[in-house]
């Protein structure tokens, strides 16, 4: 079962594992809200090295407020950035 549900507040883990990963640096450490649960997919960090990609990872679209990401952002305060992030990159707020 997926760990998070739509509306949950999450914080993106800060990490730089050697090799391939799909969590851009600019979003690491940022706090956002689960916008949708995309489903379960093969883990690209394993697929990239010839493995089968299992166990499957839940993928989420996570929503961030642009002003939280970029201090100088001047657009509408409701402007958002939505990005797809695999579950093992997400923590609850309490986990920090």
């Amino acid at each position, binding site marked *: 079962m997926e760990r998070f549900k739509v509306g949950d507040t999450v914080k993106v883990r800060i990490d730089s594992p050697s090799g391939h990963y799909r*969590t851009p640096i600019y*979003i690491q450490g940022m706090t956002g809200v689960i916008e949708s649960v995309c489903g379960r997919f093969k883990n690209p960090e394993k697929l990239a090295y010839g493995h089968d990609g299992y166990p499957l990872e839940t993928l989420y679209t996570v929503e961030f407020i*642009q002003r939280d990401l970029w201090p100088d952002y001047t657009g509408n305060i409701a*402007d958002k950035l939505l*990005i797809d992030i695999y579950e093992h990159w997400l923590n609850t707020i309490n986990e920090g």
Partner: protein
Amino acid sequence: MSNDQHPNHGHHETETEVQASYYASRSKAIETLLVEKGVMTTTEIDREVNAMDSKSPADGAKIVALAWSDDLFRTKLLANASEALKEIGYELPDKTPYLKVVANSDDIHYVVVCTLCSCYPRMLLGRPPDWYKSLAYRSRVVVSPREVMEEFGLRLSDDVEVRVLDSTADMRYMVIPRRPLGTEGFDQDSLAALVTRDSMIGVSDPLSADCL
């Protein structure tokens, strides 16, 4: 340079050979290895390349035109793009990446990017434009989406909520742009003619009704 180093000096080739770029040479080398090691055949590679080249923004434009005129189809398309497209005869590959369709409105405007590389709904729209793959677009549209869209000629009101979609994983996004004003009586072909590739990425609006 001495003639010792260039024994053929003075001999001119009748055709000019174009030096393959670094990436062209690299992809050729990878393709050769895949074939030699029996991972895939040249026929399979050609089939995939042809399949991708057979897709074009015209396919997306037809789908947008239908979504503009058929509310039920539009609702289905937004909820489950693969299923909705299957019903009208577009069979998308039954494997990831999956297509997800979002709709722009007077209140919300989506714009799509892949900051990591060049993820794009190729299964429907074919190859992405070069600017979509450029470092400038990928880095700037997440930080300054309104400025970037202005450079494409789209000035959004401050009231509109901008949503940048960074497709970093298994989902590919296509935008249904806002239907242009004054197109009430238009047939499907005329509507589709207004839908540009860039409007399905979200960096611009479709053409206006008087363009036809």
